[in-house]
């Protein structure tokens, strides 16, 4: 088992900016840890505080909201 702690991070991303930016990171082949996973939202305004709480409840170590 790996000793280094790799946090599980849920990233809530606005479809039009942050999600597109994550796509661009791919086009540019920028490496980042695989433990970050993106959930697309139609707008960061759609983020309900419940989503953040649910992510932590489910076991996330961190939540990122980008938009």
């Amino acid at each position: 088992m790996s000793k280094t702690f790799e946090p599980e991070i849920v990233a809530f991303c606005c479809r039009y900016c942050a999600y597109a930016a994550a796509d661009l990171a791919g086009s540019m082949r920028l490496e980042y840890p695989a433990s970050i996973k993106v959930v697309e939202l139609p707008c960061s305004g759609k983020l309900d505080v419940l989503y953040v709480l649910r992510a932590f409840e489910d076991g996330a170590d961190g939540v990122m909201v980008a938009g």
Partner: protein
Amino acid sequence: MSNSGNGKSSANKALTGAVMVVGGGIAGMQASLDLANQGFQVYLVEAQSAIGGKMAQLDKTFPTNDCAMCTISPKLVETGRHPNIQVLTNSEVLDVSGQAGNFSVRVSRKPRYVDPSKCVACGDCAAVCPVIIPDHFNEGLSTRGAIFKLYPQAVPNAYAIEKRGIAPCRDACPAGQRAQGYIALIRKGRWADALRVIKMDNPFPGICGRICNHRCESACNRGQVDEPINIRALKRFVTDKVYAEPRQPPEPAVVKFKQRVAIIGAGPCGLTAAKDLALAGYAVTVFEAMPVAGGMLRLGVPEYRLPTAIIEREVQDIIDLGIDLRLNHRIDDLGRLFDEGFDSVLIAVGAHEGIRLPIPGANLEGVLVNTHFLRDVRLGKYTNGQLEDEALGKRVLVLGGGNVAIDCARSAVRLGREVQLACLETRAEMPAHPWEVEAAEAEGVILHPGRTFERILGDAAGQVQGVACMRAASFSFDERGRLHVEKTPDSEHVIDCDTVIFSVGQRAGLAFIPEDANVGLTEKQTIAINPNTLATSRPGVFAAGDCISGTAFVIEAVDRGHSAAQSILRYLQGEAMEPPAKPELPVVHLSAQEIEERIENGEIKRQPRVPMPELPVERRIDNFMEVEGGYDDESAQEEAARCLACGVCSECMSCVFACGRDAINHDEAGKIESIPVGAVILAPGYQIYNAHLSQEFGLGRFPNVVTSLEYERMLSASGPTGGHVQRISDQGRPRRIAFLQCVGSRDQSHDYCSSVCCMYAAKEAIMTIEHARAETRDGKGDGDVSCEVFFMDTRAFSKGYEEYYRRAESKYGVKYTRCRLSDIKENPQNNNLIVRYASPYQGQAGLVEAEFDLVVLSVGMEISESVKNLGSRLGVELDDYGFCHTTLFDPLQTSRPGIFAAGPFREPKDIPETVMEASGAAAGAAKLLAPARYTLAIEQEYPPERRVEEEPRIGVFVCHCGSNIGGYLDVPGVAEYAAALPGVVHAEDNLYTCSQDTIAHIIEQVKSLDLNRVVVASCTPMTHEPLFQDALRQAGLNPYLFEMANIRNQCSWVHSSDWDKATEKARVLVRMAASRAARLQPLHTSVVAVEPAALVLGGGAAGMTAALNLAGQGFQVHLVERESRLGGNLNLVRYFIPSVQINASEKIDGQGADVSPQAYLARLVAQVEAEPRILVHLNTELLETQGFKGNFSSTLRQKASTEGGQSHSYKVKHGVVLVATGGVEYKGQEYGYGQDPRIVTQLEFEALLADPQTTPDSMRSVVMIQCVGPAEKFCSRLCCTTALKNALKLKEMAPQTDVTILYRDIRTYGFKERLYTAARSAGVRFVHFEFERKPEVALERHAGSTPELSVRVWEPILGGELKLKPDLLVLSTPVVPPQGTRELASRLKLPVDMDGFFLEAHVKLRPVDFSAEGVFMAGMAHYPKFLDESIAQAQAAASRAANILSQKTMQTNARVAVVDPQKCVGCLTCVRICPYDVPRVSQEFIGAGSVLGAAYIEPAVCHGCGSCAAECPAQAIQLCHYTDVQTLTKVDAMFNLLEIAGERSAQ
């Protein structure tokens, strides 16, 4: 009546419902989208391989600091996939014929070499491209390959190949060797790939690497720099390198056809043809008379030049393809080959018969011929030094001066003989290569040039003793090829020898062709052939090589072999024999000028050939070892790096091998298409000024001087430096940066202002400081950076610009120094840049010297040569700079009817004006073509949608994307994993899921497996979701039953170094997608009818223009004016800006010279009144508006027409609202206004000027003060130009009048700069002031007389105070929103900005739209602007409105928020939170607890952002397609809590 006002001339002929838009920048995209949405077919022509234009190169946009790419990206995508926009990239308009309404445009469509419909933009091709050239998109700050995607977000999202032409090396080579290609691969150390490239054109690389005469090198452009590339040595190097590895025999070729081919002669020509024919699928038999294969290579070229091992290897590589080689098999009778069942025969017997001159003694013992001698040497007949060999005496004399003669001589040297060589030619004219002759001499061969051979002397035994020669004075050949020699009299002498070798030519032995073989011979005893097809007179028999041409070089034999094979293939396949004409690319010959420029730019560095080791003479004369050594790896790569990559693409085919989609076709040919359209819009954009021409600023000479566009690329996070500003000289971080304004603007060669540079410099300075601050926050820097801008006037003249500029100064500490720098010097120690300047405006005395780490040149706008050429080809009038000439009253119409212009092509301008003009030009085209709407635009049809009520049956399709996903994670494993997920009934993996065949397969699977949800795990939904949704619709499923898992951009591409983790993440992403898919519901849109009428508020120039355009397009217009007459501000304008100083003369209807504003207004009003579709509502105000886009209902109130009469209110229905309520001149108390009649505003002054009663005496001295009152906070844009206009008018009326203008910055942007120049030359004085030290106006009252008017102002250049006593003080007061604007704004629920002007949806890209849909604005309601700008914006607003009005019905958005009234408590949270003002609480609904009143969200206007759903405290609102359940299940699935998810979601 359906025809528009402009349609009169074309009423009889149907109009073409298509428009061509030229230029794929922001203007072109906007115009295309408007027209396509209005039912026209659009052809968008772009010269580059992707649309996006200059804006795509920018980092941020001012004044909001939005990311430029983020803001245009949605427009790029929308343009790229609009069904009615055809994007024609790599294309150029050649000419336009026909007339407005019915043009035919010829478009040159240059090849892209990559099929965008197949390309998946994976980049596998670019990864293997060996070419390295500057990346122009990054302004040369980085490099790219010849195959490239213009920029990461490019649309079309596909690669393209840049070919400049054929490299001269390839052109010079008879076999067309792609020398540039293998050189580039050698540079990269890719030896095997390099050899593959060589072998595609030439099966004998090792051989040619040694003995080729390398014409490629003579043609090499590098020769103009220093020395040609040593191409031959590189070829040899790479062959040696690969051949040193264990040989891998090639796979035998598969025989696909029954027909058989016989080839006579196993030389280079015959074997080349054999290889081509075998690879094409034919059985080939090669007959060779000799015991070895290789022909002259093996038997005619000495071993020391060409080792046997190389020949044997390269021959074997061909034979191993499955060729039947029959050695020692002389063909005696051609005809018998056909009897033996061969279908075609190639004669390639070479020229092995040496020639003896018919002189006495030619047949003596000891007289040999070259071919036989060399062959005998090669076959080991002679032994070194064994003089007892009867056939070869001690002293050998070779007769002849060609390369073969030298071969004979040098071979004889190696056999230990004394060797002499005699030839007819002089030493200098010897046909052998000079280096060969030199090598022979160095090895001891004695030359006797300039001799005739009279007779060969023999002894009694018939053994040779010598050759009697004479000296030849001169010689020539006659027309029939016969030799005539003038001999020197009495010069006969004898050269002693034991052996004579004739080397005076050779010919083919054709004895095997009997007379009855039907194969014709020529006079010279060669086979007669058709030179194009190599066919002989007997069908099926072909001949090629030395037997046709006489001795030639091996590379020619190779070429002929290829040609022969091609002919035979055509013959066997029954095709026309003549080879098809191939479109030829131009040969790239670099001009001396270009080479000089590239050397200056540092692109080429002078460096001679890398020398190659050679065997010393003393070690080579007694053996047959190779004389030339070879390069080692390092020197080969160094030599290869000298290549100039002339053709750009080298056609090395690496990309073709790498492409998994078969998308690349190097043979694609360009074509010219004629496209019928009704109108043309020109939006070709600008180019930046080439600042290399301003040598004083050092661009190109000093590495740390960059252009602003280079700087933009550096600032861009996706740019070449990843967003880090760097010095070019040492990649260090610059701490002191200078920005130089007006480089290529406002100078000797540009009399205009480029309008944008001041603002972008402010932006670049702000961003630089922002970056430094961010680095400090991250602990990566110390934040130490300073920016200084050297400028003349800051032109911050648009909405929010003045504030932005002030912020740069006050919040970011950008230093603004008012001066014009004359030059820049470099500190050679550290490459820093030194400037010297004086700036009295800052209160500094004397010269200041400052040193900077980096200097940014704010380069201006120009029109490129190609655009100028386009303009003249199309016959539109351009000015001297190439800008398109248009008129004040019709600013978007070019001089040719039906052709419109938009953007900087008309005049330098910023993005918002460009976007306005694009829409305005679209309105012009739409008005012209309105009757042809929907005649050419297409609509897709789908099968009926099936109902989905059963349990989820999900199909999962996992994409390999070639190796883009499959290469980094376990795709089949992910598919297998997906198959076991809940609800999934089918999962599979596909090589390319987006390919046409897979799409068809998905449709089939949905039908046959009864799938009701589809998940695709591949790339990004941003580009591919619509494609797959369309597939679902074709399969009869609702498109919302689709979900994507982004396992490429957000998985394989970013976790490429960890297979296991990438695989695991892909599984998770697919699990998340499948769990959401199970909860997706079909969504439906509703259809709403559109009311085809517009409500235009404001009857000024903007309102009337918009009304006329919309009416001309066939829509009803209600034009509402508060006042009793139309015209608005235009009623107050007396003079236009003197047009001669701005443009050519303005005309109305093509007649008359300058037109007065009142004449223009009268005409406009008459047009409005004559238009039956416009209903003018004078004295009328808007009371209330209800409804939504497409369906508004407004209440208007008309004031009583008579005193005391009744006003009356009524309703009108309309689909759109246009706000064009204008602005008014500010009148406040500043500078004593209102206290004295001699203090007036500019409009009042204009009225005075126009008043015939006014005498010049009353205004012998006039002072104007700029930036009055509110204009201290925002720039009113017009005032500087208006002040200059009136000052010039006064100067024209009374030249002796003193006019002094007190100003902060003179903001005469664009061509208005000419007015500033004219005012200065007319003697108008300018005095600068700052707000900290404003002018002071005083009225000193003396008893009994008029008070004395005085203005005191600090004069910075004189350094003292001026006291002026004008007759008249004119205040340049700004335009401000008219009274009632805020009230109107609240009635329409529209936002206004801090200064009270209406606020657009997006300051850059949606300058006429409100964020509320269906409502638009134009004219001074938006911001102060000039008449032509108002007209353009009014046309733009009409175009945006027509996007709605041209639809019969509108589909509502399906992804909208829905209220469950039973949960709603009517708390108004949603009403407050909605950025678009959509939700309202209505009494029509019963809320929670049966209380009256609940929220309602009109689906027709909901934008679907979901903010209300997130904020609703009662969770009464759900956003369709993004319900809480649908999103939360993804979160749960991420943590593999699927089972629980079901329970919890049910809560």
